[in-house]
């Protein structure tokens, strides 16, 4: 239930640096053993379709990482590395890309990986009938794919897209067997066919997905620890939504790996030798509270700053996350190379807040100690999505509610189920909101802060919750998205972030938490440097 809608739209961007990501490297001397079944318990929602082309959310990415592969991947340093594509070249005008495919790679249905397959996949992603949202939007600038020769596919673009490689590195744009894609969507959803190290054999809804090793596997990414087939004989992918029972299951050894580990369990895990933690923050935006600048009182910058100054985030994080989450002062995830951090803008300072409010005209206080201005109480409506904010985060909001009260803010927390939450956003009746957002690269800023992002889709959904409408910012973001000159790009994004942070549109909290816990008998598991999903290719069981 956690945050499966977060990566609704994911677009490309440059390098990604896995700060906390540690692979549980096998101790020297102990060689990997082949065989065994690994049980993975996920707390994320169960996918409605195992083909990440359809829709395209994080739960799909998690499991698809085991049986699907993308054209390119990334290394820890955040640089694009070969995977199914061995090399690629961008044309001078940036309007066409040639990808050379790896030789004699076969899909698990026996069909070969070739340019037709790539073309078919792009076509599949762009076909409205597929109902792809993530992949579809990632390929917005791609007009088509032409077959140059059997192993060379040419992408043609409408405008230059500096984010294309990052887009293609994501599991939502993984390459599947063209033959398999021709089957009905229902069938393809049950048993998608890729080139990955494992094969989906059975999916018992609401219970588990069974995966077995692909013995013919030969296409690991360049940064994999070994070559050839995976060590594990099989994976059982269980759905355990309840975090407490998930952790208990791990403790008792009923399962080997869990995701969405809660802060307290991480601390507990540290104390035992049986468990190992992997911290793999998701790319894209940091977790932050967005201040709706389109309506009073946050249409006044001073009030926005006052709120931010009066919110004691650090204490809250210490109390709730036990040091498993690091305070962020950035609009972007700490894994984003181009993210800039501005701690001084977000220091906790009640005095400053009070001063700002006085300047803004919120001088009186009512009997409850809330600020009042010409009869109106300084009241803030804060719809909280119980689906997208983990309990610790909801508690954090409660604590901010308490600290900002000192400054005279009256924060009304409204825990809502997803549809009501979207309703509240669509009605533009909120002053504060927190919506996690996974996507690779700083281009996320364009989604989140471009004026276009304030126009609701038919369903009422829109991404720019802060409702920043700044032509200068828009211009910066568009240019950044098109230039492939890294220097220029960096500076453009820096200016953009200065506007966003300096305008007090957001209150950054911490990276999008993404913690895995493993039994120490499980070796070699690592999170993909792309969107931090764990891959079991190198994993083996020492028991």
């Amino acid at each position, binding site marked *: 239930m956690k945050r499966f*809608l977060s990566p609704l739209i994911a677009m490309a961007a440059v390098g990604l640096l896995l700060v906390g990501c540690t692979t549980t490297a096998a101790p020297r001397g102990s060689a990997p053993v082949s065989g065994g079944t690994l049980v993975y318990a996920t707390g994320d929602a169960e996918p*409605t379709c195992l083909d990440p082309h359809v829709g395209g959310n994080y739960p799909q990415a998690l499991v698809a990482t085991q049986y699907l592969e993308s054209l390119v991947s990334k290394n820890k340093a955040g640089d694009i590395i070969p995977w199914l594509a061995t090399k690629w070249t961008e044309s001078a005008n940036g309007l066409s890309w040639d990808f050379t495919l790896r030789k004699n790679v076969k899909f698990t249905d026996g069909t070969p990986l070739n340019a037709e397959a790539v073309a078919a996949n792009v076509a599949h992603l762009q076909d409205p009938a597929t109902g792809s949202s993530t992949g579809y939007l990632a390929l917005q600038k791609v007009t088509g794919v032409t077959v140059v020769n059997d192993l060379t596919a040419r992408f043609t673009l409408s405008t230059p897209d500096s984010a294309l490689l990052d887009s293609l590195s994501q599991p939502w744009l993984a390459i599947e067997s063209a033959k398999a894609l021709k089957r009905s969507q229902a069938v393809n959803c049950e048993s998608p066919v890729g080139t990955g190290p494992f094969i989906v054999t059975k999916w018992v809804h609401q219970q588990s997905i069974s995966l077995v090793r692909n013995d013919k596997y030969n296409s690991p990414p360049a940064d994999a620890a070994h070559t050839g087939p995976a060590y594990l004989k099989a994976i059982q992918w269980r759905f355990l939504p309840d975090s407490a029972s998930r952790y*208990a299951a791990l*403790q008792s050894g009923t399962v080997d790996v869990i995701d969405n580990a809660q802060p307290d369990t991480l601390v507990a895990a540290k104390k035992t030798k049986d468990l190992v933690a992997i911290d793999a923050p998701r790319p894209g935006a940091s977790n932050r509270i967005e201040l709706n600048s389109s309506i009073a009182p946050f249409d006044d910058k001073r009030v926005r700053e006052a709120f931010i100054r009066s919110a004691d985030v650090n204490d809250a994080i210490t109390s709730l996350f036990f040091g498993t989450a690091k305070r962020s002062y950035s609009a972007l995830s700490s894994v984003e190379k181009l993210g800039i951090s501005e701690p001084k803008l977000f220091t906790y300072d009640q005095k400053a807040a009070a001063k700002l409010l006085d300047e803004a005209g919120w001088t009186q206080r009512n009997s409850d100690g809330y600020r009042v201005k010409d009869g109106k109480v300084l009241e803030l409506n804060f719809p909280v999505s119980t689906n997208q904010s983990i309990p610790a985060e909801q508690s954090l909001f409660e604590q901010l509610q308490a600290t900002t009260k000192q400054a005279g803010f009256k924060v009304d927390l409204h825990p809502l189920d997803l549809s009501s939450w979207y309703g509240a956003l*669509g009605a533009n009746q909120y002053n504060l909101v927190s919506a996690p957002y996974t996507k690779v690269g700083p281009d996320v800023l364009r989604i989140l802060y471009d004026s276009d992002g304030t126009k609701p889709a038919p369903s009422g959904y829109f991404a720019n919750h802060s409702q920043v409408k700044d032509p200068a910012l828009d211009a910066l973001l568009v240019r950044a998205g098109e230039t492939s000159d890294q220097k220029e790009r960096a500076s453009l994004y820096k200016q953009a972030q200065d506007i966003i942070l300096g305008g007090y549109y957001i209150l950054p909290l911490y990276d999008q938490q993404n913690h895995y816990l493993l039994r120490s008998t499980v070796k070699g598991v690592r999170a993909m440097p792309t969107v931090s999903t764990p891959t079991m290719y190198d994993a083996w069981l020492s028991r």
Partner: protein
Amino acid sequence: MALPVAAAPRSSVARRWLPWLLLRLGGVVFVLWAVATVTFFAIRLIPGDPAEAILGGPGSQASAAALAKARADFGLDQPLPLQYLHYLGRLAVGDLGQSYALRQPVITVIGQNLGGTLLLAAVSLVVAAAIALGLAAWSAWGGPGASAVSSVLEVVAAAVPHFWLAISLILLFSTTLDWLPPVSIPGAAGLILPVLTLAIPLAGFLGQVMRESILDAMASPFVLAARARGEGSNGVFWRHALRHAAIPAIGLAGWAFGALISGAVVVETIFARPGIGRSLLSAVQQRDVPLVVGVVIVVALGYMLVTTLTDLADRLVDPRLRAR
């Protein structure tokens, strides 16, 4: 329930049972129809566009075309009465529709999960009955002291919420003692804690009822008569008291069924046990209307079957009903 049956002793089995059975079946059909109708019109009260729900709820950015397609696919564009008739028609042939969230026929989803729940419920029922009987027997022999103690035990057991019991059991047997798995794994070991969680409160209720009727029976003239005939305590308990305890217990069966299903919702969720209880909860959380309706109807059917069977059992155990 009990309809007048020819009291004449010589009336044939057919004449005694047939009309009763027919009436019961009629009742079952009627109730199922009513349940289906209630649910059908109830879900029309759900705010928001069902078509949107089908496509993954708000935020799914469903295009107008997709919405229209969904409406057509699910027949939502037809007039309500027509939809209702189609709905009934599909029900009649056992088609419960397509789950929004799982993209699977509801009947398959239920099929996959029903077994687990039934197993859980059945075992729990047996265990509960055993516990209750034990307490009842103890208070029948152990005298007023025992009776008082077991009555307190029963009240406590009956009042404990499933989730709290489950948590306590997990803390004790899994986290602390590490004897039993905290989530149900295939096999007997995984069944123990869920069964206990379901059985203990049920045992509380059953025990209260059974103990009272057993004690009443033990104090009744016919038991004195039996003793005067030379019957020993055992004989009195097994031959006389027990049957009298059975009647109210059987009467509770319908209720117990409900209690077990409701309990299953909690237990299956906490112990991550596959079953319709868990399916139902996730369906509720995701507003997966067809699945919710499907489960509701299946459970209603189950309830009707249980009550019919218990009625039958009642009439077998207690001839007084037949005479009426």
